[in-house]
């Protein structure tokens, strides 16, 4: 373990080219107009790949003990859960109605 952690360096420039390529792909994916869901899945997938590259190689997570990886992954899972826990409240039709109505009232009173 100690020899293993002590430090044959990964090929950092290769990681750099990967990150650069993924960023260019991200921008290319983001610019054209098409289905939002597909775009979101592609972009989040690309962003996560980049994040994993940075954590694994630049932050050497891949070469650390496994327990650390478990600690580090936990908050990311909790954050994802947080978003999904909020979603039902936010996307229901009632809520959208609630926002639209007062806006129209403001609009007419302005005239």
């Amino acid at each position, binding site marked *: 373990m100690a020899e293993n952690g002590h430090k044959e*360096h990964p090929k950092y420039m290769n990681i750099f080219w990967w990150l650069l390529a993924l*960023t260019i792909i991200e921008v290319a994916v983001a*610019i054209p107009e098409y289905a939002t869901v597909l775009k979101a899945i592609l*972009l989040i997938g690309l962003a996560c790949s980049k994040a994993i590259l940075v954590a694994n190689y*630049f932050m050497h997570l891949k070469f650390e003990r496994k327990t650390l990886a478990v600690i580090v992954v936990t908050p990311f899972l909790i954050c994802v859960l947080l*978003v999904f826990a909020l979603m039902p409240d*936010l996307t229901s039709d009632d809520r959208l109605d609630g926002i639209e109505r007062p806006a129209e009232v403001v609009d007419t009173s302005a005239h």
Partner: protein
Amino acid sequence: MEHATTLDHTEDVYEPSLTPDSLGKLGMWIFLVGDTMSFGALLAAYAAVRAGAGVIGWVPPVEILGINLTAFMTFLLICSSVTMVKALESIQNGNVSRMCTFLGLTIAGGVIFLGLQAYEWNALIKHGLTLTEIPHHGLSGAAISGSVLFGPTFYAITGFHGLHVTGGVIYLIVILIHGLRGRYTAEFNHEVEIVGLYWHFVDLIWIMVFTFIYLL
């Protein structure tokens, strides 16, 4: 074959105990885990506000500024991450002056990033994106009221990240000064590794911010 499996297993169970070096690293990782939760909460709040605005309206900053500037800022942070790992690699090979050069380049990357962010904020504020208002150009009253929370969430998240970059630049300058005074050697360099962890984390968060705020 069986013998080999047993050995691997033993290695997993008896991990080496914490040394002062690995304690510092563990401390930084735990801080970063907490920080991830802060950013996670902010991004979840952003997702919430945006999903709440729904079809009514949303004014992403790329429509005001274009994507080139922030794509370049992303590129810049990735470059500064590379110079950071190069700095660590140099000192682990015992090359102090090379480490200082790369630390200097990393600091320069951070400072340019902050300058570009200041420029971006300035342009957005001039364009009418403030904490209480969004640019009205071409939007109905409903759309404006739908996305009025865009300003506060945008400035909170990019500002929080900008503060992290500022802190990182100061942290790196301190490490650079230590380096110039000859504190680090091929044997004693875990402080450089720890500042690297922080800096890469800031880069990692920007990757997420870039995707969720600018691209989506």
